[in-house]
């Protein structure tokens, strides 16, 4: 659990981050969204003290981090940035081993950890361990960047626009991978982006920032149905808010008892996808199937539409 208490950064008289307090739950993905200049990156960088706060403090699992030497604090917090910043003169394996080496792990343990991470990130150790960053594609570099940040098993991972440089297809894949990684390692992830779709797709909770202030911090559905500020509505988008709301619920969660002779949809599909499928097939209802092929229930168009209304 990370608690930010009244965190403020001032440069001269301007407050780039202005009195932000929030609690980030363990084992969750929290996304901070905002336009450029909203202070979201500065907020993130105050957590690993790449930026020293002017006021306020950061507590990790209840312990104040203010007194801890910054470089030691950073070794237990993973950090991924846009452009990744891989060390060009070091191999993929050496890049990933950076923090374990700083922490003085023995070589055997480092080797095992690096090989493990390479396979988790779908990089064949034989082909890539000794490759140099410039020999990798953008998507591979991104994965190495995340693997490097996770190498020393940090409880917290900070990510600053980690998918910004990827094309849409690879970005969607990288986002799915991140959700998998989060479930697998149980890491608490705090991610900064300006992309609302990304925030809704990844975030258990989403924080909206503007001009250094935290406007709203809540579950994505609440941001849509009860925006605290006109700026939040503008960020989440008004024209397609019903569809956005549908995309936050899975078919499995919304399924009602009963059978359907309509098309079969996966329980993991979002209501938005189910609705699209029903429109496409001209059917009134769909059969919701679990991954193992058992019938979970059914979904009618009326039931889906009801889910797209606030309240």
């Amino acid at each position: 659990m990370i608690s930010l208490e009244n965190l403020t950064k001032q440069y001269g008289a301007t407050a780039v981050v202005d009195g932000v307090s929030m609690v980030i739950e363990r084992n969750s993905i929290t996304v901070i969204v905002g336009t450029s200049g909203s202070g979201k990156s500065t907020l993130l960088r105050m957590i690993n003290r790449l930026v020293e706060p002017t006021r306020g403090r950061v507590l990790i699992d209840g312990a104040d981090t203010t007194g801890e030497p910054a470089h030691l604090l950073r070794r237990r917090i993973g950090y991924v940035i846009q452009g990744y910043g891989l060390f060009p003169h070091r191999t993929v394996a050496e890049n990933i081993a950076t923090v374990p080496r700083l922490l003085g792990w023995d070589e055997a343990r480092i080797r095992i950890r690096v090989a493990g991470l390479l396979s988790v990130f779908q990089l064949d150790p034989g082909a890539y361990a000794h490759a140099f960053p410039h020999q990798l594609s953008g998507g591979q570099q991104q994965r190495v960047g995340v693997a490097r940040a996770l190498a020393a098993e940090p409880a917290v991972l900070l990510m600053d626009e980690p998918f910004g440089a990827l094309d849409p297809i690879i970005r969607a894949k990288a986002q799915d991978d991140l959700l998998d990684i989060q479930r697998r390692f149980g890491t608490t992830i705090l991610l900064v982006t300006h992309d609302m779709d990304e925030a809704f797709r990844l975030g258990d909770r989403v924080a909206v920032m503007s001009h250094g202030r935290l406007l709203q911090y809540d579950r994505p559905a609440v941001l849509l149905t009860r925006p605290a500020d006109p700026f939040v509505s503008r960020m989440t988008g008004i024209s397609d808010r019903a569809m956005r709301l549908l995309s936050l619920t899975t078919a499995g969660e919304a399924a009602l008892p009963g059978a359907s002779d309509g098309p079969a949809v996966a329980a993991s599909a979002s209501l938005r996808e189910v609705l699209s499928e029903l429109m496409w097939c001209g059917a009134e209802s769909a059969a919701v199937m679990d991954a193992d092929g058992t019938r979970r229930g059914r979904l009618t168009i009326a039931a889906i539409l009801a889910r797209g209304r606030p309240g």
Partner: protein
Amino acid sequence: MPGMAAILRLAALALLLAFLLTPQSFAPLFAPLTQYGAPPIYDQGNLLTLALAHLGTVCCAAAASTLVAVGLGILVTRPSGAQFLPLSRTLVNIGQTFPPVAVLAVTVPLVGFGEKPTLIALFAYGLLPIFENTIVGLQTCPAAVLEAASGMGMSARQRLLSVELPLALPLILEGIRLSLVINVGTATIGSTVAAKGLGEVIIAGLLSNNNAFILQGGLVTGLMAILLYDALAGLERRICRTAHLD
């Protein structure tokens, strides 16, 4: 064509070694340049010894320049030392613009004749290329790489040693090479204050109006500079390739 360049380089090296080891065999070549039966080959000292002393002086000065210029370059690119950048740059520029001959004139009264004033003059003259290249090398490290290094938890020192200096290495080596080559030529003036070196040959030629001596001193110095430049460039490429800095 690399093959051709390699052959030329080897030929130049062979020519230099042949001349330094058996200068008398070149006597017929230089004889037409002498008058009144003067010796065609420098005979007041061993040419090989002079060449090695010359190279030794240059290398000592370059080592000292490298230490100071790289150290200063690191200092002024740290946040705590940034305020010294204008001052350091001025000092290093003075070292370059103050003529080495004038440095000799100033230092001889202080440290006496011999190697010392020459070393001081070459040291001051060789600072600029190394200093400027070190600064450019350190300042052009990609921002994302530096941010990642700090974000991973490297201390300032670890970041400097394991990220910044390796990434700046190609430029630093280039600066050292330039400095060395410039000073191979400049070191000839050391002979005016009794430092051992190839300047002796040239000065002896000037004093006795012997064009053969002047040409010999100049050619050996020039060949050494060219070969040194090539050898160091090759070494740089090899270092950068093994460190994947290209």
